């Protein structure tokens, strides 16, 4: 059996699937194994199929694969939904005493383990612990020392009291013992390794929240929306510890305007939402840019348009982020590609916002946001965090930015496009700003020369940034390969693993994962050096592919997925192979 273990628990929403899955993931991570989790969830609170999947290995894991070794099925539907991923020898743990599962028979070639989850949970102190009984059984199947569960249970239930923790430990052991004593367990021989490594386990939304605090964010306002809500829930209570505040606004219009207000008062400030919220924020987005307010606006994309599929993956907002809003709006669009990059790019987003006094879109996608992954804690190195507040002018320097009438010039058309900035409270710095076109003092104007000067000044910031910052890509695979694959956002992980699968089939690829959507790296040279260029993204029309074609004046091939599910590594390898075969088959 491979060391790679693919485990899942599935049932109905409301069955405690998420917390059970998380406990198992944490237990594996604490036992020094790498973990990558994914969630299938429906947009409802009770009912509807839900699953939490954990892939684990001693090697680093970057994506999901089409394979399931152990499945805890609380409902029959769970088995049906995962049929494609189950294989010969897969173990299915279920409660044969439950009416809805009593007629269940494991499909041909698979091993069904009927464990009386509810009854054993009651023996341990309460039916609620039935999932924990199943976890204990799974530990035995995987030959994973059950002690590893203990700390995870402590973490989950510690604040409910020691007796609850003890009951849960007992429940897990009853599950384990039942497999040992009552069931024939010769059919499976998993023996997963543990190591001494200490990993941290977190998802993209949490990494964004942590990055925001590290970067000195002090004010967050947001309106709940899947899959961005976790950012707000992470920050609530934590931001306050550092002197900040999380405000749940009445809607997204309020959220972005509050964040704008806090930013003008000098706080590093952020809001996060998903596509529908970005639509609502669009008008104020223009105001943020014209008033030259530093603001980080995070869009955690989900499937659209309209309310679309709120709990499903998509990368469909790129056009809106690049071009959305009336008039022409200078902006930065930064799109982290992994969970740890969510942390680093968030910090970068705050620095960019303040250095250039410009709104920054920080773009995540659902797959990145809800996926938990293990990392070495050093990847979140707090000591290396640098804060750049840009051209912040205090009382001592203010004289050089006043005009002849001692008025401060917040929109002074400096050559690099970046004006000085005073925060309210700075004496002598009082000024106004407005979304109306304005002069260097912030006063409304329709004078043609001033209009041109201010538009050019704002756009100049992008050019300055293009020169001063490093808008690079991340490179993987074989840099001399004829096939070039490009992607953005969460596809990086699956694509990195796909390189391995392709390698086994003797296909070399060069893979560039692009974390900057605007400004972005110029890929002309890379594209010209390749015979085949394929752009991979989770949308129907290929928005990033369009951008690449426009930038490089070269036609690219597209691999798109828009059924609401992220790419899997093996699937991606297959689709790339197909694309290449199709190319070769073109008749001459």
């Amino acid at each position, binding site marked *: 059996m491979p060391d790679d273990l693919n485990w899942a628990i599935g049932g109905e929403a409301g069955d405690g699937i998420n917390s059970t899955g998380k406990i198992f993931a944490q237990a594996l991570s604490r036992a020094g194994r790498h973990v990558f989790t994914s969630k299938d969830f429906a947009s409802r609170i009770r009912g509807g199929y839900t699953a939490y999947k954990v892939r684990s290995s001693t090697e680093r894991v970057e994506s999901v694969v089409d394979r399931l070794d152990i499945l805890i099925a609380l409902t029959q539907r769970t088995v049906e939904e995962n049929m494609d991923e189950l294989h010969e020898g897969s173990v299915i743990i279920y409660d044969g005493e439950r009416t809805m599962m009593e007629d269940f028979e494991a499909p041909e070639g698979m091993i069904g383990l009927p464990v009386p989850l509810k009854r054993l949970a009651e023996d341990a102190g309460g039916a609620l612990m039935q999932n924990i009984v199943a976890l204990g059984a799974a530990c035995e199947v995987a030959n994973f020392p059950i002690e590893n569960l203990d700390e995870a249970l402590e973490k989950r239930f510690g604040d409910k009291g020691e007796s609850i923790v003890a009951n849960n430990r007992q429940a897990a052991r009853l599950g384990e013992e039942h497999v040992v004593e009552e069931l024939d367990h010769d059919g499976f021989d998993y023996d997963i390794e543990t190591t001494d490594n200490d990993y941290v386990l977190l998802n993209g939304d949490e990494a964004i929240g942590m990055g925001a605090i590290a970067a000195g964010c002090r*004010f967050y306002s947001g309106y709940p929306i899947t899959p961005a809500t976790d950012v707000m829930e992470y920050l609530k209570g934590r931001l306050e510890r550092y002197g900040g505040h999380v405000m749940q606004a009445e809607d997204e219009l309020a959220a972005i305007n509050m964040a704008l*207000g806090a930013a003008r008062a000098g706080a590093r400030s952020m809001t996060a939402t998903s596509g529908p919220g970005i639509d609502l924020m669009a008008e104020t987005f223009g105001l943020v840019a014209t008033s030259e307010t530093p603001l980080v606006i995070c869009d955690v994309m989900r499937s659209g348009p309209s309310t679309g599929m709120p709990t499903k993956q998509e990368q469909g907002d790129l056009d809106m982020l690049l071009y959305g809003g009336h008039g022409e709006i200078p902006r930065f669009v930064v799109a982290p590609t992994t969970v740890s990059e969510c942390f680093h790019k968030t910090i970068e987003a705050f620095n960019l916002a303040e250095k250039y006094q410009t709104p920054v879109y920080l773009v995540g996608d659902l797959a990145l946001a809800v996926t938990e992954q293990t990392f070495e804690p050093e990847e979140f190195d*707090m000591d290396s965090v640098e804060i750049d507040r840009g051209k912040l002018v205090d009382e001592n320097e203010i004289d050089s930015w006043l005009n002849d*009438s001692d008025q401060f010039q917040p929109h002074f058309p400096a050559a690099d496009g970046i004006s000085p900035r005073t925060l309210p409270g700075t004496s002598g710095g009082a000024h106004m700003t407005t979304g109306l076109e304005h002069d260097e003092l912030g006063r409304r104007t329709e004078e043609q020369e001033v209009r041109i000067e201010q538009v050019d000044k704002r756009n100049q910031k992008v050019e300055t940034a293009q020169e001063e910052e490093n808008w690079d890509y991340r490179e993987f695979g074989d840099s001399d390969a004829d096939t070039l694959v490009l992607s953005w956002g969460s596809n990086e992980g699956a694509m990195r693993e796909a390189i391995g699968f392709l390698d086994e089939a003797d296909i070399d690829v060069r893979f560039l994962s692009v974390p900057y959507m605007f400004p972005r790296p110029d890929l002309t040279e890379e594209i010209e050096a390749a015979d085949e260029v394929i752009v991979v993204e989770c949308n129907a029309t290929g928005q990033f592919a369009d951008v690449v074609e426009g930038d490089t004046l070269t036609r690219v091939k597209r691999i798109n997925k828009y059924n609401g599910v992220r790419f899997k590594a093996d699937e991606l390898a297959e689709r790339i192979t197909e694309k290449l075969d199709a190319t070769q088959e073109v008749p001459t």
Partner: protein
Amino acid sequence: MSSDVRFTDFKSDKQPTWCPGCGDFGTMNGMMKALANTGNDPDNTFVVAGIGCSGKIGTYMHSYALHGVHGRALPVGIGVKSANPDLEVMVSGGDGDGYSIGAGHFVHAVRRNMDMTYVVMDNRIYGLTKGQFSPTSREDFETATSPEGPKQAPVNPLALALAADGSFIAQSFSSDAQRHTEIVQEAVEHDGFGFVNVYSPCVTFNDVDTYDYFRDAIVDLDETDHDSSDRDAAEAKIMDDDTEYQGVIYRDEESVPYNERHGLDENMAEIPDGAPEDATDLVREFY
């Protein structure tokens, strides 16, 4: 804050483009006087304005100021005050701005009770877009978009504020300079959300709710036995459709503003050079 501030220090050198006689002149003068009288100066004051003739106020005043998008001035003010509670925050806009496109924010700002002042220049018409009916227009008020009147009940902003548990609800008339200034001043001094609806006539598009009309109709609460701490009495005044009242209608003496309830007392502009000292604790939580 300096003690020798005069209200003219809050004046910018930009000449207002309001029509001669517009009520907004008086409204603005009262706001500037109220700020100066309460010991503020332009460098510690933040004025947020909405869109409309009324919203131009930020341009004509001198202070830290932001002229935002239509209807969203209140959330901006809330953000400013949260981030730096030392600032005196004053938000201003029109009846269209505040009670139509921004009505949602109005109700939530009232119940949030942030320590700031909201002055609405209520001319019962859309001025800047040249004379359409507004949410406070009378049911039979004829305009280009309501040739036979809007045929819908006007919004009663004071009632909205009371229903949302407003802690300071007042009304004034822009041409009664002294009373208007006093009332705004009380709103500034109030610990919480100080809301003042100001009758600020539009001399160009509204020939019904005119200076003469208000002058005749207004009853000053100071000349009655109204007790502004009595919520029931306030409700009776607010629901009385036949009289235009001027004065502080309701004041909750026990009001504790949002910023105080949430312990917002630091200036959030001050952040360390790198990550906070104990930031590695944040990473450790994920073990």
